């Protein structure tokens, strides 16, 4: 992609905004359409765009494959961890009221973060696997 000056410039212009929008959608899921699933996919789309234009190695230097592979499990662990934490604090599994004052709000935020991490990591991992397959051809 050395001679694709326009594409490289526009991508450099846009990727920070896409990442920012992903985080906006994540935290604003409480007030409008949004939440973990949408935000995870938008985040992964930004990384995929970076990988397509600047090369797979640049993308893997930015977001390491080992990191995203652990991310796949970490998000689900966070979700179940919130449930177990509510059990340990006296309520039932995933009973956010046991998390203290304003427990519902904190519980929903943590749970959506877990979903975000898992969805983004899975999308990036699938892209990396396909790209490595193409590169090895």
């Amino acid at each position, binding site marked *: 992609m050395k001679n694709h000056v326009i594409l490289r410039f526009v991508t450099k212009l846009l990727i920070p905004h896409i990442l920012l929008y992903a985080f906006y959608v994540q935290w604003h899921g*409480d007030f409008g359409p949004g939440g973990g699933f949408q935000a995870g996919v938008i985040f992964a789309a930004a990384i*995929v765009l970076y990988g397509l234009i600047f090369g797979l190695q640049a993308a893997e230097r930015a977001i390491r494959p080992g990191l995203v592979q652990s991310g796949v499990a970490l998000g*689900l662990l966070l979700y179940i961890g919130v449930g177990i934490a509510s059990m340990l604090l006296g309520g039932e599994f995933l009973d956010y*009221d046991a998390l203290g004052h304003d427990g519902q709000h904190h519980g929903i935020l943590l749970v959506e973060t877990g979903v975000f991490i898992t969805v983004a990591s899975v999308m990036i991992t699938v892209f990396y696997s*396909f790209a*490595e*397959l193409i590169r090895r051809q």
Partner: protein
Amino acid sequence: MSGEQLIDIVLLTLLASTAIAIARLRNLLATAMLTGIFSLLGACWMLFLDAPDVAFTEAAVGAGMSTILILATLCVVNAEEKPSRESPIALVAVLLTGGVLVYGTLDMPSYGDPDAPATTSPITRIYLDSANAPSEQEEGHAAGSNPGDGFVVGIPNTVTTVLASFRGYDTMGETAVIFTAGLGVLMVLAGARHRRPDPSMEIEPEPVDEGPGK
């Protein structure tokens, strides 16, 4: 015919014609692009049905990630679909299944029906009342009381409340499904992980938009 009915008919016709085109085309690159268009039209239709969260997800996943992954697969395989033999048994099976499904939808309540189970059930009223922001309801009991007792979650987006709090168990299942899908892909394409990328090679992958369409 009102404007909304017209938009409805146009959107559904476009969806149906895109689906037929996807099934009939043999050039796989065109099919990949049409799949993206189908997802975008589906997102428009869901927005028309007043479901912005779902439309959002469908647009991002279907018109974004899914198209990229299908194109990536096309880089590895043939760009033309092999001609398949037409089989009468397949036609009968498809017609039978489709007919049974259509017969099933005849029983479903129409959109916005006031007598539908979704509108008259007490659970709906409990969910909607419990999800309201505190300023719209008087202060209720604190944690642990039964829903419907003035229990209030207090965030404005009802969809997120239902997804993450009232139906949190189901969302955990969904996240586990996504996790399993990622795990499955990693296991199938496992060979990629055993070789460390060679830092001296400056090879960059072929951009997927120049793929097999030569």
